[in-house]
Each structure stands twice: as C-alpha cells, then as structure tokens.
C-alpha cells in the first residue's frame, strides 16, 4: 500500500458522509498529515490579548506542535512570531509569559537581538558576516512572523500556512458565540483570570473535539459523577438553597429529551454549537447585581437578549471550544496521534461582579481538571476508544445518527441536539483541509 501522502484517493476514502475509517484516529501518518495540512490551513486560536496587555509582553505556546510567541509590539499590535532564533534555531524565550526588557528579544545562545516585530536588530561581531550570503537568507532578516493573524474581540487567531481561507469566511456566523461571551461583560471586555488547567489525554485530538457537541454521552459516561451528586442531594428539602457545585453537576444527568431539544447549529468548515434553545447552563441561579449592571450598560432589552443566549459548547474547528455562558474555553494541543493536551482557561467579565469569575473557576475545576470526576469519565472513554480502535474486523466508526441525504447539499443549519451532524460537519471540513496541494 502507498502511504497516504502519495495516495490522495486512499486518504479521501477515509471519510464517508456517515462514517469514518479508524485510521483517522490511530494512524501516525494520518496524524502527521493533519499537522502539515489541516492544522496549517485552518485558523488556530493562539491566545487572548489580555495575556499581553503592554508593549513587549509575550505569551508562548505551540500551534500544531510549532513553538510560537504571541507578542505585543511597540505599536500595540499583536503579532505571532515563530519562537526560533534566525541563527541556529534556539527558542528565544522559554517562559510561558514574560516581558521583553528594552523592547527587544535577545537569543540566550549567541546574543542575536530582534525588535518586537521580529526584525533582526544586531548580531555580535557583525563584520564576520561581510561578504557572506547571510542577507540572502531568512537568518539575515529575522524571525518568521505569521502574516495571517486576526485579533477578534481579544481572541487571537492565526493561520500557519500563507495560503488558505480568509478569517471571516472560515468562521462566518460561528463568531456569534465569541460575541455573546464578550457581550456578557458590561464593558464588552474579557480578561484571562483564574489560572489554566492543563490535562494530559491519551487520545487523538479529534475525540476530544467531537465530544464537545456529543450530547448522547453525559447521561451514560457521567452517571457515576453527576448521578451520585444528584442522589446525595435528593435527601435535601426542596427549598434548601442549592450549592453552586450541585447546580453545575446535576444537568449532566438530564435525560435524552433535554439534550435532544437543546438543538445543535452547524456552520461550514467544521464549526458548530450545541444549546441553540437552552443548555445545561440555563438553570443557574441569577447573580445579584450582575443583571442590573448589564442593563445599565446595554439597556434592558439588549441585556435580556445577551443573557437569553445560553449556548452549551461552541467548537471552533480544530483547536478551540468555548462556553460563552460561563466564560471559559478549552484549547486542544495535539502532541501525537494518541496524545493531546487540553488546556482550560477562564475569564473575568470586566465590570461584572467577581462572583461570575468564582462561578467559572468552580465549574472548570469540577469538570475540566485532571482531578475532575467528570474529566475522569471522559478521559477514560477517549482512551477506551483509542485502544479499542486497534481491533480489526470493523474498520469504521459510525456517525449515522440522524443522517439525512439533505446534508449532502447543505450541512449548515439547525438540527436536533442528539444528532451526530456536528461530527459529520467536522469530517467534511477535515476531508477538504486534508487534500494534497498547498
């Protein structure tokens, strides 16, 4: 058999309209191609601009395993630079967050310096390069910067490949979920706050992303966690005030009907969100003062509309998922075909009572932490799939639930919440982004 790289038809045949071949999850070559094609052509979430408020502030991370620096320039603009010295390749900065003293980056190895926009400033004993071809190479110019970077209301996205779709075309209407999260701040501003949870998963990145709009699993996988919480709380008198933790746990064991009626909305290019009509976050107790502040900022009608939008999970394919209703996000960082790091970040709604931050801090600990009982359930299921898919005899993973032939023409639209249409939408995008060529 020829490798997938050299056999576009074999690669294309991994994805059918209602099922996918197990190799998309377990084949190391497919994973390498994903990193080189899909993850370079897609728009990836890099970080939030509140992490780097001042010129010279930086945040380091990886995009498709490539080390990058998100940098605030002297002109206040946010740039994304490859974290690789133009000389011999050493990472210029190694801290996760930092500040460039004197407005320049200096390599810790041979002392080459760069301006905050990545351009080369000085090389020690520069005369040694006279008469050489240094100027004709990237080394003579400085760091590689990404040309395609968009700061959307504080959320910084970048595309690694110089070719690909425009940001606005790629995300289209799905950006309304980010809008709703930002609008929930009376000042229209978010700040990263409350720390970042980093949770190692023994699974392919797609299993995590698919799960975010998988509404057929909570009542099964999370029965032991949320069901136990429900049972323990059942002994309380009905008018006992529910602790926030109980409010957050209980909806995970709502019935199939709840999740089905919640609805899912599909956008082109793999994006989608569950919770079109309501969600597991809808029944949280109101937090005094917050609604008033929102009304003062936006007027009663607009404030009601903002709070009335209580989406569950929005998937920004392939590396970001957000929960606007509780201002938290998760970022998938693929490491290997069967290894993925999931980061969970929370935000302060600037101008809102701190109780809102406390609510999201509690939620992310209960649900997304390496110590979370809900997280344990999910991680177990992902790993069980990762290992189970090595079984031969059935090469296909079923995505048939509520498939309809009408999706062939147009997949964007609203569907019942328990449909697997979001996964079919993701793989439709996958097939396009994995095609050979630039």
């Amino acid at each position, binding site marked *: 058999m020829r490798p997938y790289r050299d056999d576009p038809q074999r690669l294309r045949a991994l994805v059918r309209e209602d099922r996918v071949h197990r190799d998309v999850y377990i084949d190391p070559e497919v994973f390498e191609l994903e990193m080189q094609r899909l993850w370079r052509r897609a728009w990836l979430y890099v970080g939030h601009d509140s992490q780097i408020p001042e010129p010279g502030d930086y945040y380091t991370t990886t995009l498709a395993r490539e080390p990058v620096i998100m940098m605030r320039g002297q002109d206040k603009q946010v740039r994304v630079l490859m974290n690789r010295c133009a000389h011999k390749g050493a990472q210029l900065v190694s801290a996760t967050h930092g500040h460039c003293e004197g407005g320049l980056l200096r390599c810790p190895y041979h002392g080459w310096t760069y301006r905050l926009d990545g351009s080369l400033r000085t090389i020690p004993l520069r005369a040694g390069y006279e008469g050489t071809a240094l100027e004709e190479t990237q080394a003579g110019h400085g760091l590689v910067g990404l040309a395609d970077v968009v700061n959307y209301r504080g959320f910084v996205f970048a595309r690694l490949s110089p070719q690909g779709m425009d940001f606005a075309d790629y995300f289209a209407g799905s950006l309304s979920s980010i809008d709703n999260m930002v609008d929930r701040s009376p000042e229209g501003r978010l700040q990263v*706050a*409350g*720390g*970042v*949870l*980093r*949770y*190692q998963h*023994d699974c392919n990145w797609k299993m995590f992303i698919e799960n975010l709009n998988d509404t057929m699993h909570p009542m099964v*996988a999370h*029965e*032991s*966690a949320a*069901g*136990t*919480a429900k*049972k*323990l709380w059942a002994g309380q008198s009905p008018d006992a005030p529910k*602790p926030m*933790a*109980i409010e957050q*746990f209980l909806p995970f064991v709502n019935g199939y009907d709840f999740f089905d009626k919640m609805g899912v909305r599909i956008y082109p290019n793999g994006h989608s969100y569950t919770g079109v009509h309501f969600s597991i976050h809808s029944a949280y107790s109101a937090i005094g003062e917050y609604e008033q502040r929102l009304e003062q900022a936006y007027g009663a009608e607009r404030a009601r509309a903002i709070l009335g939008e209580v989406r569950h999970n929005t998937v920004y394919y392939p590396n970001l998922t957000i929960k606007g209703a509780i201002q938290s996000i998760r970022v998938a960082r693929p490491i290997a075909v069967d290894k993925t*790091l999931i980061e*969970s970040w*929370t935000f302060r709604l600037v101008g809102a009572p*701190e109780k809102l*931050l*406390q609510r999201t*801090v509690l939620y*992310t*600990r*209960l649900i997304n*932490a*390496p*110590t979370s*009982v809900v*997280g*344990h*359930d999910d*991680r*177990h*299921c992902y790993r*069980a799939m990762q290992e189970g898919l090595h079984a031969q005899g059935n090469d296909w993973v079923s995505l048939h639930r509520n498939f309809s032939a009408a999706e062939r023409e147009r997949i964007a639209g609203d569907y019942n919440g328990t449909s697997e249409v979001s996964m079919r939408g993701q793989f439709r995008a996958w097939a396009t982004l994995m095609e050979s060529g630039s």
Partner: protein
Amino acid sequence: MNAAPALGTAPIDAETLEAFVYEEARLIDEKRFDEWLDLFDEDGLYWMPLTRGQPDGINHTSLFHEDALLLRIRIERLKNPHSFSQHRPSHCQHVLQRPRVETRDDEAGMYVLRTPFIYVEAQADDQLLLAGVSWLHLVRRGGRLRIRLKKVELVNCDAALPSIELFP
C-alpha cells in the same frame, strides 16, 4: 482514629499529632475513604492549589478545593459500579517524611503540621509520581482531632498532569 481514647483539654503532645498524620494517609492508602472523610471537621476543606503561593481557591482554579459535600460525592462515586474510569482500579501509596508541628495553640486546641511527602498513584500499567508538602490544620473537637484544612502543595502543581483519581 475513632477507637482512640478521647482527648482531654491538656496540650496534645507531638507524638499524638504525628500519629494522626500517619493514620490520615494510611486511611487513604487502604481506601478506607468513609473513615478518612470522618476525620474532617464539618467545615473542613481538602485543597490542592494549582499555583505556588495561591491565595485562595475561590477566585483562582485549584486541583482540589473540596468541602465535605464534594468529598462525599467523590467517595460515593468511587463505590458506584458505573465509575468506568475505576474499572481498572487506582491504588495509591503515601510515603511521608516525619511531620513537624509548625504552630500550636493549646488553649484553642489548634495545631498545624507540615509533612513533606511522596505519593504514587497507579492504575494498571501506569504509575504517577507526585511529591510535595502537605499541611494539616487540626482542631480538637468533641474529644478528638479533626481536620479543618488539608492543603497539599505539589512540587509540580502547574504541570500538565494526567488524571489524579484518588487523594494525594
């Protein structure tokens, strides 16, 4: 500890306090979680910060920040046959350095002990090694010592971690 003789109002000696710390870890390692939970005061808290020097667990995310209700949920879940992540059960072992009484207030019956530890949590072929310092804030109540706060400071609290399913 339930079987231990009731404590009077006299100052509690270091040996008794140290024995409490060893017993607390042993109850976890032997999976006697109900007895372990019974060591906690009504308002007791089990806290594992996510960052060094983290001021609180309310405005900042932690790995654990569990009151009696959340600990009870966790412990009951471990007994639930549908806890799929425990079908290959996790096992753990604390190895403690000798605890040291950091502060004592005999009048109020309040004591703080500091115990460096190594903790192994194993599940099938995987083994997770953690280390850190555990702080036990104890109070004498109803003739016995109870935990007001167990604070576990991991050396690598901010690292990317796999699942921690038991109690370091």
